[in-house]
């Protein structure tokens, strides 16, 4: 073993003892990690990525243990030792960063105390020296005003800053290995981009080995130089990051790459190809190739014999670094030659997706506002005498949607997307403004709405685990809206429900199942069927796929496309993933702090002229292509409070383009920007003249080209 190897894992198998036996959650995992290298573990949820990480820090819980294999850390074997020995050996040489920074920080301790404690306790450093080092470290993670951050409590800084503090804390002991488990998944896309920049920078300056776990291929492409793809507890492919994306050899890796939409791809010119089936639970894995049951290339040998991870010969690998694959036919499978199998369910592509102006307007919203009263906490507020304060969640929004079209709404969290949808569906009543839906006034809440209107407005929810009532069967839940609105006679309800089940690609045998017997994707399908039961004209989708795994996400998106065509419904589609929104929508509205800053046809939004905020969002999207060239625009700070939004243009406090205007953009802080018409239906809410906005370079240069080369 070379001296620079930090971590070497060989044939690792991890098992959990459960009621009535044990489950091998992870099998046959091997990888090496050198100093200054970052190794990405990718795969869907339930594939054992986190289990591998936890085994390294002996954090498997009471019932988990390393069953086979070896973990060598800096030349020392970690398996088969007692917890106390492990603690001493590892000391602080391995640290871990988790998904949720709020859970890693003690909410009742000042950040400075938490950080210095790491040094005073573990390295017996003096208080003063520790403070000095902590300050330096906070500066290195680009924390603005570190001295004041030291005095604050965790809830007083933003999520992105919290994650910076956690990373700083992890680096204080100068660890040899840093494990990051989905460190940016809980963050907004703009904040995520900045944290990823930081991780990439630290990798180079600190010489720390990083094990980076993520389900997001784009994130991995940005920070890792080696990638291991895990599936159902096994390592199925391992190579350099370029090699994985340019020359994927395992059918699972190929499937993963095919099922995420590229930024810039749309539904008219490209297609998402889901991987059929779902990740099997550990006790139901096939004895042959674990991916066999879902593989398009599976043959008899794949069922009979489990393939081992083998290194490809140089002929099949495009780079000099080793590329290993666990597939019997890795050498024969060519990524570019893949054709969708005949039985794959794909939506028929709509020709001329864009029939602008032809269709009648179905939803017309004008200057819609939704303010929430906030309870103050001063003494006067106790008696209702304090100053009235309001959260301006939706602050004057206007748009219209033609029948049969999809309007996508994007923006960071806290910009009012969900409130807008809740107001339209009637869970909240509007504070001011007009909203007209097929002749109905929809500014009132549900108590003041007719059944006729409710029937035509339905919603698909985000969280598959709470979208269905756990106490009722699938059939009862889809049938309920039919009974409630009396659409059809009682004795025909079952037949209608079965029909709906078929249209979301579920069989009649799902009728009597309970939600807990379904997977996340299946629950989401039932949620869609329930929303469609009354044949609504407008369906609101609030992040319908963001809680799903990518392969399932592709299938659900395809399904939504298909039912939209079948039922000719109009969709309002909220998502935080800009690639998904671009793929799925005909029109897109970009929201910032309760206002729409840009709205127009999807293609127009993703090319100049951009609103500066749109530009920043686009340049933050992680692209699953290590060669894609993306402009580097990072927003400073976080979204300001909606109680007191900045004057003038809400975005002026963070706008990277403000300096283009005279006096450093004085006008932005003083006056509300005008709506500038770019083309028919494409409007930008900005002081900078359209001509100047149009001169900006496109944010991404190669991503679109890649799609075509893939035969999109």
């Amino acid at each position: 073993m070379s001296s620079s190897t930090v971590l070497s894992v060989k044939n690792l198998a991890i098992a959990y003892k459960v009621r009535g036996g044990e489950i091998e959650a992870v099998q046959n995992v091997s990888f090496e990690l050198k100093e200054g290298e970052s190794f990405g573990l990718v795969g869907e949820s339930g594939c054992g990525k986190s289990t591998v990480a936890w085994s390294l820090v002996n954090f498997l819980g009471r019932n988990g243990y390393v069953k086979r294999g070896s973990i060598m850390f800096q030349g020392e074997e970690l398996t088969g030792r007692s917890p106390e020995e492990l603690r001493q050996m590892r000391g602080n040489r391995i640290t871990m960063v988790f998904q949720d920074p709020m859970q890693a920080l003690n909410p009742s301790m000042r950040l400075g105390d938490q950080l210095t404690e790491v040094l005073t306790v573990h390295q017996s450093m003096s208080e003063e020296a520790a403070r000095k080092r902590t300050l330096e470290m906070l500066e290195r993670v680009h924390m603005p005003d570190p001295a004041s951050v030291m005095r604050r409590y965790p809830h007083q800084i933003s999520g992105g800053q919290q994650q910076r503090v956690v990373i700083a804390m992890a680096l204080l002991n100068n660890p040899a290995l840093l494990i990051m488990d989905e460190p940016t998944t809980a963050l907004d896309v703009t904040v995520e981009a900045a944290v990823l920049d930081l991780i990439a920078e630290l990798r180079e300056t600190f010489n720390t080995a990083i094990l980076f776990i993520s389900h997001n291929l784009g994130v991995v492409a940005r920070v890792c130089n080696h990638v291991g793809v895990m599936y159902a507890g096994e390592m199925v492919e391992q190579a350099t990051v370029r090699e994985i994306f340019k020359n994927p050899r395992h059918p699972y890796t190929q499937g993963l790459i095919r099922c995420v939409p590229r930024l810039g791809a749309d539904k008219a010119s490209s297609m998402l190809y889901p991987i059929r089936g779902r990740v099997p639970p550990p006790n139901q894995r096939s004895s042959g190739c674990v991916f066999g049951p879902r593989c398009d290339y599976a043959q008899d040998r794949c069922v009979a014999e489990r393939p081992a991870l083998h290194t490809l010969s140089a002929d099949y690998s495009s780079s000099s670094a080793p590329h290993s694959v666990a597939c019997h036919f890795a050498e024969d499978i060519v990524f570019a030659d893949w054709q969708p199998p005949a039985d794959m369910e794909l939506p028929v592509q709509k020709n001329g997706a864009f029939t602008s102006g032809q269709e009648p307007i179905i939803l017309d919203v004008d200057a819609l506002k939704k303010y929430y009263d906030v309870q103050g906490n001063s003494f006067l507020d106790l008696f209702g005498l304090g100053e009235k304060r309001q959260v301006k969640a939706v602050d004057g929004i206007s748009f219209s949607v033609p029948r049969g079209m999809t309007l996508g709404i994007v923006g960071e969290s806290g910009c009012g997307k969900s409130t807008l949808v809740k107001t339209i569906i009637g869970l909240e009543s509007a504070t001011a403004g007009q909203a007209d839906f097929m002749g109905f006034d929809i500014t009132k809440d549900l108590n003041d709405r007719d059944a006729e209107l409710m029937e035509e407005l339905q919603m698909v929810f985000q969280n598959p685990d709470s979208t269905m009532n756990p106490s009722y069967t699938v059939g009862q839940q889809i049938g309920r809206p039919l009974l409630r609105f009396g659409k059809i006679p009682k004795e025909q309800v079952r037949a209608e429900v079965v029909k709906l089940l078929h249209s979301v690609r579920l069989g009649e045998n799902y009728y009597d199942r309970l939600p807990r017997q379904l997977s996340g994707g299946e629950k989401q399908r039932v949620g869609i069927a329930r929303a469609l039961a009354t044949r609504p004209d407008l369906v609101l989708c609030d992040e319908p796929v963001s809680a799903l795994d990518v392969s399932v996400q592709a299938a659900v998106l395809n399904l939504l496309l298909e039912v939209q065509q079948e039922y000719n419904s109009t969709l309002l589609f909220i998502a935080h993933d800009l690639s998904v929104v671009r793929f799925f929508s005909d029109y897109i509205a970009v929201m910032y702090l309760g206002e729409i800053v840009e709205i127009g046809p999807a293609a127009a939004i993703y090319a100049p002229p951009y609103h500066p905020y749109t530009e920043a969002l686009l340049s933050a999207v992680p692209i699953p292509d290590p060669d894609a060239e993306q402009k580097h625009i990072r927003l400073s700070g976080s979204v300001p409070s909606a109680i007191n939004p900045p004057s003038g243009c809400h975005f002026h406090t963070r706008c990277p383009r403000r300096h283009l205007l005279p006096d450093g953009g004085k006008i932005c802080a003083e006056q509300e920007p005008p709506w500038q018409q770019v083309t028919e239906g494409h409007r930008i809410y900005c002081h900078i003249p359209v001509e100047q906005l149009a001169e900006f370079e496109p944010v991404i240069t190669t991503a679109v080209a890649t799609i075509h080369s893939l035969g999109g």
Partner: protein
Amino acid sequence: MAVAEQTTSVAAVGSTSAWRRYGQNALIILDSRVGTIGLAIVLFWFFLALLSMVWTPYPPNASQFEQNLWPNATNWLGTDHLGRDLLSRLMTGAQVILIKTRLPGGIAIPGGVAIWGVFGSLVLGVAMGLTAGYYGGWTDQIIMQILDALIAFPRIILYLVVIAALGQGDWVVIIAITVTGAPGVARLARSLALDIKNRDYVLAAQTRGESAFYIMFREILPNARGPLLVDAMLRIGYAIFAIATLGFLGIGLPPPDPDWGNMVNEARSYIFNNPYAVLWPSLAIATLVIGLNLFADGLNEETSRYQR
């Protein structure tokens, strides 16, 4: 408790499988050792109570033996100060707690005083708690303030007030238990409703314009039944305690049937001659309450694990 009743012809097909499901769910209690022990103790008392309906060693109210006998071959547990067989009285005493309630006019209905009392507090408490939690705002304020005021009184005073107002009788004890138990149930039901009312399936029900009644009792209640059931089991234990306390004070269940609390009270004067007459009914109260607590613990453990 209101479980998902099948009303439509469509759903009727699913009802057999639904019942089988409840059966299977009931069996999970056997996975917990604590729960199984609790269940065994509770079933033991149920069995004795049922048995006493048809057979007791001797008539429970007949003074046919010597007074204050210690346990012997004839009277296995001894006799009391009036020469009545303690075992027979103990068995009969379980009846009124667990399996029958005597109503005015000489009618008896199945289900003991403790069970009806807890059922009453469940119905009342769930209705108030769900309303408070689901509507929120002023409704919540008013309901909860009233309940809090009720909680502020010592229980024993509430019992005395109810009994002083309504006189003696099984149904009065039931009302006393209902009134004192409802605030606790309401608090639990309210907190569950607060949690569940923000789930997406409740929002979905709202967007199809379901009535508040439907949402509270059909969408929220079925998903709150686990914690409520566990709580009810504990409450039966408390209710037995309350009955015993009232019996000890001499204002509980009316004679002639033996009552455990009253047995302790009567035997207490002779405790130095015959400690067994105090010991057996005390032990009976303690074991039944402990059994119910263990059962509730086991149920709680297994239902929460099952959901995971």
